[in-house]
């Protein structure tokens, strides 16, 4: 039995190493909601499913299992804010819990890289699912001090919901979990063409062929620009990077003039729960540096107590 209301916080790569404001925001949100957040010392890259699994599937599982073992030793479920990390860790965790042959093979190799043995005692959770289902729009109302009055283009990305037979969260064809949660924060979700397609970063594409990645992304941005949202809301630091650097690339190379702020669900939720805008970190980002959240203070007495 894992510890209740406690998570082993899996950082991954892009959040701590490119967007630390998402890390700050996530800690703020989870601690305000009453969870204990534990460091996963010595963790590594998940490793990313699009690249490392395609090089060597067994080693991909071993490296993922090593991360899972660190959380098992903390006796806590893993919390991730990244779709790729979720994809790898949730999939390997589920697979090794049921596939004895692979579990033995992985545990044999784990002995070579340290004092690790996969036991299958924890689960892996994504923050969008924890906020959307465990806290829920009904539960977050009691914790927010302001609502943001804005229209957002919500980007789910790929690995949070797909493959659905493994994720078992909700349909990947018509998801509403994020829309329903952020509605409680004052956000109106704006639908756009091809909303549920990839941003063009994952699957090893961005690392392998930047031009192909930008071709996919340009189509995505055109569809978003058609509906003129106030900002783009994502649930994955890799998609976040793509929307940030991609807009910059299109402006410099394809005669575009995009400046849509890119905001992770953790950043938005932290702001609505009272975190100072300075820590939301938009001034560190490439796009929408000067964006000012509209909206209203709703519970001044709680804000004063923060």
């Amino acid at each position: 039995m894992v510890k209740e209301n406690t998570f082993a916080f899996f950082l991954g790569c892009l959040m701590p190493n490119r967007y630390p404001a998402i890390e700050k925001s996530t800690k703020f949100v989870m601690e305000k909601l009453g969870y204990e957040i534990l460091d996963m010392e010595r963790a590594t890259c998940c490793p990313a499913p699009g690249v490392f699994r395609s090089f060597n599937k067994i080693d991909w599982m071993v490296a993922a299992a090593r991360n899972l073992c660190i959380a098992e030793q903390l006796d806590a479920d893993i919390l991730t804010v990244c779709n790729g990390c979720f994809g790898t860790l949730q999939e390997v965790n589920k697979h090794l819990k049921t596939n004895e042959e692979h579990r033995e093979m992985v545990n044999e190799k784990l002995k070579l890289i340290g004092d690790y043995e996969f036991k299958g005692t924890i689960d892996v959770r994504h923050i969008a699912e924890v906020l959307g289902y465990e806290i829920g729009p009904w539960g977050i109302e009691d914790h927010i001090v302001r609502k943001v009055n804005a229209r957002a283009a919500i980007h789910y990305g790929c690995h949070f919901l797909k493959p659905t037979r493994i994720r078992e969260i909700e349909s990947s064809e018509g998801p509403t979990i994020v829309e329903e949660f952020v509605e409680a924060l004052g956000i109106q979700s704006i639908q756009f063409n091809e909303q549920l397609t990839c941003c063009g970063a994952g699957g090893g594409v961005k690392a392998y062929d930047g031009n192909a990645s930008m071709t996919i992304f340009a189509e995505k941005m055109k569809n978003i620009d058609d509906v003129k949202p106030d900002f783009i809301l994502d649930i994955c630091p890799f998609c976040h990077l793509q929307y940030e650097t991609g807009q910059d690339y299109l402006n410099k190379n394809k005669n575009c003039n995009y400046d849509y702020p890119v905001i992770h669900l953790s950043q938005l939720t932290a702001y609505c729960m009272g975190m100072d805008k300075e820590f939301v970190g938009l001034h560190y980002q490439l796009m929408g540096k000067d964006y000012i959240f509209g909206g209203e203070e709703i519970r001044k007495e709680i804000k004063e107590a923060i």
Partner: protein
Amino acid sequence: MELRNYATKLGNISPNHRAVVGYLKNFGHAVPINEEVKKRRVELGLEELPPTAFKFKQEGDDKDLKNFEEHMFDLPPVKEEKKEEEET
């Protein structure tokens, strides 16, 4: 997936992807930290380095990443480019 694993085993892996494997072995991350982000982390009230394997390497304890270097994602050497035939 099996085909992609087999292609890698034969050395058919792009230089960019090969570099990502190098990052994992050297830094424990597919995307390593840089000086600018270290500064931002401190400004945000976070530790300069996240408590991942790289931080321990920086502090002189590199056993995790040494083990990765030795035992994980062993790639075949870079293939030499085929020389063009001088005459057909």
